[in-house]
């Protein structure tokens, strides 16, 4: 039938089945140890079900390891990550209630993909899940697998047949070899229905949970903490227990060799939220940290801009309605609303406000600065007037210093850890030798690095740039007044700048080309580029993403005028 091995005695492929369910060679009557159930095309799903339902579980393999499934590994990863978040001050409910439930739901939903399940069974599975309390503790307990077994019946024949074709091609070679039981399965291509776990997706889970609980950590901050090493991600497998052996394809799944990318984590999070059929998330109101008004305040401080600008950002937010609860709150599966990047949005609002007040055309802002300087000379009131030029010089200097540090850190980033990984037992000794050599060389040259020792991980900080009002050198602009660049009209202070230039007259279709606009540095004023660069550094994302949000905001803000004056050039009068 499907058993294609050659007989050990006569090399023929001519098998029959004994009564005991064993294969025997019809040519020479050699009886093998292979039983039908092992060679069955459904062997992976069935063997799992059978071993579990029989209560059998191979506890000890020859190298002292136990059987483990990929999702157990990910569960451990998530556990470590959420513990780290707790250490950063996130509320404990996130671990025990939120993330845990998300994960369970994910397991349920994803296992749906390859088993037919009558509705009744699904309900049963759910109730089991709720009653078991220790799903996310020791993964070696059969509780997790117990869950799986209840939700599985005979495999979906369609998918199992395609499994079979890949399984039967499996030879004893190491190419489809993994320490986990289902490692090779995990990496199969057609996982569309399944949404299989990846390392970046663990961060999507974390972010989703953070968003649900409305914690004051933005996605860009989360990713920065990951890169700085405060949240386990790179080399998290070194925390796996000894018995969970990683090798072969597991490496592809659990080894990370690049920094997480904002867009990827963000998009996956939304995909995940829809996949899990989550309801509308808890509302993001004005008092939430993630509300643009709050985030703008934070970023204004970090960018060393005057507090007074906050009035302006609030006005813009209000005018275009991006402070509305419905706009901000995530409703999974709703394809019509644009997904909100809270941090990028807030940064973009500030950029727009700066454009409103200073124009940022490489000309006007400097003139205005000179004007403010003049006014400052006769300034007898409390605080000094804000001068763009001074601000630019101070911030640029700090930014350059920090950027240089960051660039060096990127070059010095260490990707490997003490726990070496080997693809198979064959190259284990080679890998260990290499590791030893690396350690030796690091010691030797580390000593020659002189007094420059690798600094200890800095404590996680929400602010990357900080400015103190106590500095007498005038390098903090928080308390500066905008009066120097405003004029009085009808008893109100308005901007002196009557002009505005749009970043783009027409927005692209985001669904088609992925962006609302296409940012090229040479096409825009240097001051604009500088401001984008500042927030790009703070959020650790490409300037083009901020540019996209700026375009979006501008189009909302000048909506009416745009429709009226489509024919004219890009400079509009307010």
């Amino acid at each position, binding site marked *: 039938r499907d058993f294609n091995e050659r007989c050990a005695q006569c090399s023929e492929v001519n098998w029959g089945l004994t009564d005991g369910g064993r294969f025997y060679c019809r040519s020479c009557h050699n009886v093998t140890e292979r039983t039908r159930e092992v060679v069955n095309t459904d062997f992976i799903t069935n063997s799992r079900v059978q071993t579990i339902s029989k209560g059998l579980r191979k506890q000890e393999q020859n190298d002292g390891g136990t059987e483990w499934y990929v999702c157990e590994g990910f569960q451990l990863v998530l556990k470590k990550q959420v513990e780290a978040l707790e250490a950063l001050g996130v509320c404990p409910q996130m671990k025990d209630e939120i993330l845990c439930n998300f994960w369970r739901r994910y397991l349920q939903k994803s296992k749906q993909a390859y088993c037919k399940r009558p509705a009744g069974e699904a309900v049963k599975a759910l109730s089991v899940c709720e009653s078991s309390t220790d799903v996310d503790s020791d993964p070696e307990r059969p509780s997790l697998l117990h869950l799986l077994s209840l939700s599985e019946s005979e495999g979906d024949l369609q998918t199992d047949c395609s499994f079979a074709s890949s399984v039967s091609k499996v030879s004893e070679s190491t190419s489809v070899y993994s320490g986990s039981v289902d490692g090779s399965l995990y990496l199969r291509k057609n996982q569309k229905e399944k949404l299989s776990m990846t390392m970046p997706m663990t961060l999507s889970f974390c972010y989703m949970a953070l968003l649900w609980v409305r914690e004051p950590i933005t996605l860009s901050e989360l990713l920065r903490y990951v890169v700085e090493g405060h949240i386990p991600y790179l080399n998290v497998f070194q925390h796996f227990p000894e018995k969970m052996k990683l090798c072969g394809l597991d490496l592809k799944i659990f080894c990370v060799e690049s920094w997480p990318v904002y867009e990827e984590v963000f998009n996956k999070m939304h995909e995940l939220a829809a996949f899990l059929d989550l309801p509308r998330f808890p509302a993001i109101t004005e008092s939430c940290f993630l509300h643009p008004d709050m985030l703008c305040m934070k970023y204004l401080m970090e960018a060393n801009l005057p507090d007074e600008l906050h009035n302006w950002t609030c006005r813009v937010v209000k005018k275009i309605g991006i402070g509305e609860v419905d706009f901000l709150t995530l409703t999974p599966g709703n394809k019509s609303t644009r997904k909100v990047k809270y941090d990028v949005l807030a940064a973009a609002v500030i950029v727009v406000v700066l454009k409103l007040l200073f124009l940022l055309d490489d000309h006007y802002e400097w003139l205005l600065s000179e004007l403010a300087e003049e006014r400052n000379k006769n300034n007898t009131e409390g605080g000094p007037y804000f001068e763009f030029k001074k601000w630019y010089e101070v911030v640029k200097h700090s930014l350059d210093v920090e950027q240089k540090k960051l660039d*060096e850190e990127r070059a010095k980033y260490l990707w490997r850890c003490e726990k070496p990984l080997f693809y198979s037992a064959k190259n284990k000794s080679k890998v260990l030798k290499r590791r030893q050599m690396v350690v030796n*060389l690091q010691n030797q040259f580390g000593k020659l690095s002189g007094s420059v020792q690798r600094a200890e991980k800095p404590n996680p900080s929400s602010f990357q740039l900080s400015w103190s009002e106590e500095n007498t050198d005038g390098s903090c602009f928080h308390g500066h007044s905008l009066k120097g660049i405003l004029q009085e009209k009808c008893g109100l202070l308005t901007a002196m700048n009557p002009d505005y230039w749009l970043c783009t007259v027409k927005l692209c279709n985001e669904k088609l080309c992925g962006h609302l606009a296409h940012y090229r540095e040479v096409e825009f004023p240097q001051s604009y580029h500088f401001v984008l660069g500042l927030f790009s550094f703070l959020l650790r994302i490409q300037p083009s993403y901020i540019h996209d949000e700026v375009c979006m905001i501008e189009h909302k803000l000048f909506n009416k005028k745009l429709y009226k004056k489509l024919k004219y050039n890009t400079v509009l009068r307010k």
Partner: protein
Amino acid sequence: SSSEHKLNFKKSKEACLSYIQDALLQKQWKRAAEFLTCYVESLEKDYSREHIGPSEMIWRIGTEILCHHSQSSMKEFNCFMEQMKTLGVKRYLKVCLEHVFHLLCNGQIDEAYQNLSLAESWRFGEQTAIQDKEMKLIQAYRGLLDYYSWFKQKNILLEHSEDGFSDLAVEQEMHGYFRKAAVNLKEIIKIPGVWDIFVKCYVDLLEFYGDHNEARKVLNEYAYNSKFPANPNAHVYLYQFLKRQGESKKSLISALKILHDIVPSHELMIDFNTMLQKSKKRKKRRLGLEVIFAALDYAGWKENAKAWSCLARQVKQIVISEKHLDWIKQEWSSRKDWWPAFHFSRYLAKRNWQENKSLSYEKALVAGILLGKGCKYFKYVSHRGCKAQLERFQMLKKFVNRHNPVYLRISG
């Protein structure tokens, strides 16, 4: 670039390398070491498709740092090299060789010898055949060190024999070193290449033991085999050997002829010219004139009194005999535009007179003949010379005056 916020292993290590490169160029050894410490984990990743892999990078960069870093020691260096030897089997012998060079540069001859012996005994499947060239080099350098030991023993022996006693033990040792050295040195010089030091040592050995035929063969091969790269030293060694052997002028001249063609400014051109001038054959004398003029075309010879005296002697001899003035004319025609400014300016006249009277004498003679008695150089020097009442300058003045018409015929 700084606005790129993505990062992966490969990009990170590329950036690391460029920081190392900057640090090396600016001789910031501590900083280079700092970044190298971060780079070494590249060894754990597969770079088999890259042209130069991390193991080679680390070897070269590490060597550079350890050579220059103030806190580095030979011990550290040796330890590092041993690790590098295990890293890449395809480079094993190369690393060994470079290690040996460093040991030699630091005067650690014995350690170098040990390393060479060890490397010689290395075998590694087909790699041994692939790295055959490096192996020959290793054997050659071991041969060289054997020569060095032989040399020391020879000197001891000579000392002892001077003191009146013979020393059999030393003699035996000496012969032993000779055998070891000869075998290896002979091998390497068979391969086309530049082996100056090996050739010299080998020839020295052969000469000592009286095998002049072999020595001659070796030197001829080295100089004349077209497979070997053109090497002026080959001809020099051959010439020196022939001279030691007391060969005829004819063979000496033929040995130097090629040297003149390759390196007209070689210091042996003086010897060459001297031999040629004395020759009975006209062609040889003609060549002699060509040789000495060619040598003096080079700035390095401007103040060489011996060279000028050679030229002066030959020019004088030609003028007196009144035969072959056309030779001078031929040589002068391509030089008359620039030699006056190059050699015979008034400034040089002053300087030569102050610094080296003999030099100025010879030059003045040549200038007087080539440019006539009215030329700046001659006038200045002869005037000063006569004023100082030096006899030879007075003779010089008379001579040039008498033969002044010659210059007209030459410059014609």
